């Protein structure tokens, strides 16, 4: 590994950071828990994934690169699961949907 950073890692990491930023913006701008989770899950997953892939490309197949790759796979795997748990927990705890919401089949079916 040399101290010179190539072009590919820079592109990957900055794209990742931009998507992370969009996810954070969505967290502020969107109205309720569920919409916010949408933005947070999608953008932050891809953003973090790209940052970690950038680290892998930069450092190559050594201890750091492999750890970044494993972390990328785990992020891709666990972050949707986590957002499902948060959304379900919020719904059961009675967090209301935004007033512009058109339909809630989950409430109709489970009564929660």
């Amino acid at each position, binding site marked *: 590994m040399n101290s010179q950073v190539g072009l590919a890692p820079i592109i990957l990491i900055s794209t990742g950071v931009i998507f992370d930023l969009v996810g954070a913006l969505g967290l502020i701008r969107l109205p309720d828990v569920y919409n916010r989770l949408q933005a947070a899950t999608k953008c932050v997953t891809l953003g973090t994934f790209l940052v970690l892939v950038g680290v892998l490309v930069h450092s190559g197949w050594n201890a750091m690169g492999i750890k970044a790759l494993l972390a990328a796979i785990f992020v891709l795997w666990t972050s949707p699961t986590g957002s499902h748990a948060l959304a379900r927990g919020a719904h059961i705890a009675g967090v209301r949907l935004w007033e512009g919401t058109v339909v809630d089949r989950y409430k109709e079916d*489970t009564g929660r």
Partner: protein
Amino acid sequence: MDTLKRRLLDLIIYFGLWLLLTWSLDWQGVVVGAVLAVLFAIALSGLLPEKAERLFSPVRWFWAIIHLFSLLFWIIVANFDVLYRVLHPNLPIRPGIVKIKTTLKSDEAKAFLANSITLTPGTLTIDIIDDWLYVHWINVHENLEDAEAITRDIAGRFEVTLRRVFD
């Protein structure tokens, strides 16, 4: 596949993960990893599902890779979708929770379908009850009663590949 074989596979996976994470073949590290892998394989209730022999089917792996690429494509589409909705001054959303019926049978397939749906444009799986998936959709169709069209839009693109991987 019987329980003992599955536990042995678990052990190999844990040990392989340890070797990848530490990335050294120093004998002390390897011994610690082997001991921990055995402990985890005994203590934790199995990692692999009942039909673990499917892990050795190349056809299933082929479809898994196809699925991964289609998933990556849809994740990128999803990100531009969020980018558009978040940066648009009027916040063009029309959210709602819809339910869809999946034709997938095994639990693993349903879990992966739910996760794939969460990562794709505008949808977030909230719960699975039997064959029904409850999905929060950021931009619900005009036609709410057309359950088939909703199912096709949300789940259709993944059911094809996931069925070949898991069922």
